[in-house]
């Protein structure tokens, strides 16, 4: 069941098509990575989902119902890439204000603020001004402000930018906790290793179009190139490993990367090594990383990633 469904969504500007007929579904309870080069239309897409921009055409379904730009943003938490806080406002007041704007009652908001500040080790700073905090602390306050109202859908645009590894892990853990609690998360980033680590679903967009989407495991299967890693002990550096079963793709140390030939099976690979009495210390399939898939798909489309600034996306 999809929490968010986009149907033929379009947003055109005079200079270009920022979002050009995108349809996709984001399953309930998933952590979905939204990937794409700069200027691909990610920000415009997210701004439409959060009700900041209206689509020119198409439909957004939120929780099986047409998106209500007044009520539904209250059930969405959005941490934009261009984000910030009032520098001269105290943390507690700021969180209260942002929480109330998301429809929380004051007493409820106060309770949750206390809870979250304690969890994020910021409680002693509650009466400090945001400007007095380190960048990492500000990011944590920003994160709290995004999730304070317990959104059904949480949209995080580059959430780890400016965070040290300890704080990154702290936020990562909270993202997993929220996911366990039933929150659906859209996670927009350029950091592929984070996508692989966190997301179970991805959407790849480029030049306003969706290139692919689906679960991470399925996509990696779809893009596999039938490569296998075989680990052999030292002493076989000069062995040519030629066979009609596979082709030696590369070797590094004790590892060989073999590409299975059309119509052959993995057992035939093992048969080759067993027949020659070469000890096999490890054997596994090599699936492409999301990074490789990303680069391959974007290049396949024949368009180099464009580097137009965010501004061109909404300019008219």
């Amino acid at each position, binding site marked *: 069941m999809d929490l968010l469904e986009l149907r033929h969504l379009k947003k055109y500007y005079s200079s270009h098509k920022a979002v050009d007929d995108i349809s996709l579904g984001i399953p309930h309870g998933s952590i979905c990575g939204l990937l794409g080069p700069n200027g691909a239309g990610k920000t415009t897409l997210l701004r439409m989902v959060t009700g*900041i921009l209206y689509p020119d055409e198409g439909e957004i379904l939120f929780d099986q119902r047409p998106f209500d730009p007044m009520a539904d943003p209250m059930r969405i938490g959005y941490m934009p890439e261009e984000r910030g806080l009032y520098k001269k406002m105290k943390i507690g007041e700021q969180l209260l204000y942002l929480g109330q704007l998301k429809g929380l009652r004051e007493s409820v908001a106060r309770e949750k603020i206390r809870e979250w500040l304690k969890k994020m080790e910021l409680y002693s700073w509650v009466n400090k001004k945001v400007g007095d905090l380190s960048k990492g602390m500000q990011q944590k306050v920003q994160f709290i402000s995004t999730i304070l109202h317990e959104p059904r859908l949480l949209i995080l645009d580059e959430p780890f930018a400016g965070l040290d590894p300890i704080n990154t892990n702290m936020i990562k853990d909270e993202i997993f906790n929220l996911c366990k609690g039933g929150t659906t998360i859209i996670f927009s980033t350029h950091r592929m290793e984070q996508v692989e680590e966190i997301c179970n679903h991805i959407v790849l967009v480029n030049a306003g179009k969706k290139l692919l989407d689906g679960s991470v495991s399925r996509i990696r299967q779809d893009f596999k190139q039938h490569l296998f890693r075989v680990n052999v002990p030292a002493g076989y550096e000069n062995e040519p490993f030629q066979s009609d079963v596979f082709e030696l793709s590369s070797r590094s140390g004790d590892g060989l990367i073999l590409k299975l030939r059309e119509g052959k099976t993995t057992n035939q690979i093992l048969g080759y090594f067993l027949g020659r009495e070469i000890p096999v210390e490890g054997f596994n399939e090599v699936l492409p990383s999301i990074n490789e898939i990303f680069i391959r798909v974007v290049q396949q489309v024949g368009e180099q990633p464009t580097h137009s600034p965010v501004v061109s996306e909404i300019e008219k």
Partner: protein
Amino acid sequence: MQKTWLIIKREYISRVRKKSFILITLLVPVIIAIFFAAIVFIAVGAGKENLQVGVLDSSGLFSNHLRNGHGVFFRYVSGESLTKFQNNYAKAGFNGVLYIPKFDIADPKGFTYFGSSQLGLDADSYIATQLDSVIENRRIALAGLDREKFDQINADVELKTVTGEDHKEGSVLVAFLVGYASGFLIYFAMLFFGMMTMRGVMEEKTNRIAEVIISSVKPFQLMLGKIIGIAGVGLTQFFIWILLTFILVTVAEIFAPGISQHARQLQAMHGATQAQSGSNLSMQIHQVLNSNINFPLVILAFLFYFLFGYLMYAALFAAVGSCVDQDATESQALTFPVTMPIIISFFIMFQAIQQPNGALAIGASIFPLSSPLVMIARIPFGVPWSQLALSALLLIGGFILTTWAAGKIYRTGILLYGKKITLKEMVKWLGRRS
């Protein structure tokens, strides 16, 4: 609506709590009061100088006719030559020498004051008046008249202005002062609070909190909340100022009778001519306090024209603020089209005070972009209700129109980062559908 209210509250409280706000609100009336007290103090003549003037009278006409006053004390010196006395008057205890030559009564010339320092304005005019009056008396006598008869002939007209159906007696001077002061105040208030709105919007944009907020509320709500919140700050300031002024005036009233009495004495002493020059300022202040200008109307109109004038321009300032990214110098090119009508209105206001019922004054006091400044300057002189109503209606209309237009620019501008926006683009955004 509830969210707009939250925004208004934050914008209002975050500013009213600032030390600078409290300081300005409390200090400005005190500074103004001190300023006025100083003027009154000087006008009443406290701290007068003690000027000992030696009079060398070669004409013989003046002996014992020059009267002491205004801190000037005349002493007649005889048997001294000018050149000698010029060198040793200080030793004799004089501050200076007034030399009166032999002169032709039809063409008096050659009166000279020699002193170690320049004469003050007051002493200078006093000595001149004394000389004049002696010569005048002499001429009156030569013409075969006496002083009493001459005073009867001498016309001293005071023009009274009566306005309205109820034949209120007004003073042009008081109307001028009140009109000028309120116009000036609105001019500064509109610019000051307009700029404050613009800076607030710029802050939200450069802080990058704008997008966070408008994921919860509509951009228009954020803009309107800010504008209304700051309007509240301005009104609070004015209310406190009006209240403090009222208290200060009440306190001053206790002392005012004394002051005005003193002023009347001065007037009696030096005659009508003297009373019309600067020294009767304390009289004028008393006149303002006791005049029959419709002060409730002035205050009400002031608050109305400030509020809606500010609201109208603040929307434009907010639109400009939403289009400025970080670079403050860039804002100047964009603010100019907004500040220009305010500055032009300021100059029309001067004209309107001189000719409150001229075509320019009437037109500009009805046209919304200039009416806040020009109408408020005209009101103390009396404005027909029909003009007032039309002006007020158009101003409210102007406010709705600029806010609508500004909202369109604002919601696009606030989301644009890292790009210089031109006026042309802003105008183009006006035509965009929602």
